[in-house]
């Protein structure tokens, strides 16, 4: 049965568990991932003709990848979920660490302004590392357009993953995730927001 709220023990398990998950994970070099993302985006630009449309498709790919990821991961995180939206901060923190080996710098839950939302920032951005000086693919405020950021495919992953959890918890909400600050737009840190809209 799903808990109403996470307790102290659950939070401790999350704190320790994320290190264990990271330790046993099969790893890839950070630069390889960074370059593979750049090259994938380049491939999408070849197909769709411009960066904003390629970013949109990349985001949709993120959503589909997030569904696949949760299919694999749901059993692992079942212990860490409760029918309490603020407790999803624990899941986001644990997931971030398990996949990137990095702690989130700050994660906060905000009931207001509605819809309730979770904001998180990270200390370093693996995704856009080196991209500011990459002349082979110029990604900046002008080329990205005003809709999506370079890291928004990660938003797609988180959106699908959180939606799977919300559906599993039978909470009547729709999740929307967006990277709201991006280094390639001139911000100091990346920032993501997950909004939880009540379902009509």
């Amino acid at each position, binding site marked *: 049965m799903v808990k109403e709220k996470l307790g102290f023990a659950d939070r401790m398990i999350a704190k320790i568990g994320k290190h264990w998950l990271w330790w046993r994970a099969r790893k890839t070099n950070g*630069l*390889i*991932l960074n370059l593979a993302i750049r090259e994938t985006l380049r491939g999408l630009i070849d197909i769709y003709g411009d960066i904003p449309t390629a970013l949109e498709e990349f985001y949709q790919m993120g959503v589909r990848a997030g569904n696949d990821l949760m299919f694999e991961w749901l059993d692992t995180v079942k212990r860490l979920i409760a029918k309490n939206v603020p407790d999803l901060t624990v899941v986001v923190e644990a997931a971030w660490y398990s996949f990137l080996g990095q702690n989130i710098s700050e994660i906060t839950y905000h009931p207001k302004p509605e819809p309730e939302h979770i904001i998180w920032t990270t200390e370093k951005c693996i995704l856009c590392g080196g991209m500011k000086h990459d002349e082979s693919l110029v990604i900046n405020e002008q080329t990205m357009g005003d809709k999506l950021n370079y890291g928004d495919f990660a938003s797609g992953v988180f959106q699908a993953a959180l939606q799977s959890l919300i559906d599993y918890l039978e909470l009547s909400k729709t999740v929307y995730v967006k990277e709201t600050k991006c280094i390639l737009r001139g911000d100091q840190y990346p920032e993501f927001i997950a909004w939880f809209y009540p379902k009509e």
Partner: protein
Amino acid sequence: MEKWTRPAQGELSRMELIDMKVHNTLFTTFYVQIVSLMKEKYGVEGAKEALRQIGQGCAVSWYKYVQPLKTRSIKRIINYIIDNSFYYAVVFKESQEGLSLLDKNCPICWEGVLEKDIPYCCIIDGFLERYLLINQEEFGLIPKVEVRAIKSKATGDRYCEHLITRI
């Protein structure tokens, strides 16, 4: 002249990225989507080429940031690349056709993925082929080669095999 701007506090350079590791699943879950999209847009043969191109693009930048090996041994170079990028080693088999790289731990062909039409890990071919070509152009100690996946775990084989042949 390029205008100097203060780096963002959260900005990483590619040199810093070399020392960082990430979960392998991050790319493999995306790769399924990439393969599917490329097949839809370009067909089977076109998709193979597009995936190889992704690998080639990675190799060009990777070569700039990871000190290349000056050696006559292709085996050493490949194991150096695999060790630095995916943290394991591969074995080789020599045959009349050429040198085969045998990979039981392919970082791309994850458990559960099934792809009948194309050698799923052909992105690795593009990566190795371009890296070896740049190394050949810089030092001239190894021959020019072509790399092609002839077996892939994702298509049901027990291991992935990449055939390296002289061109």
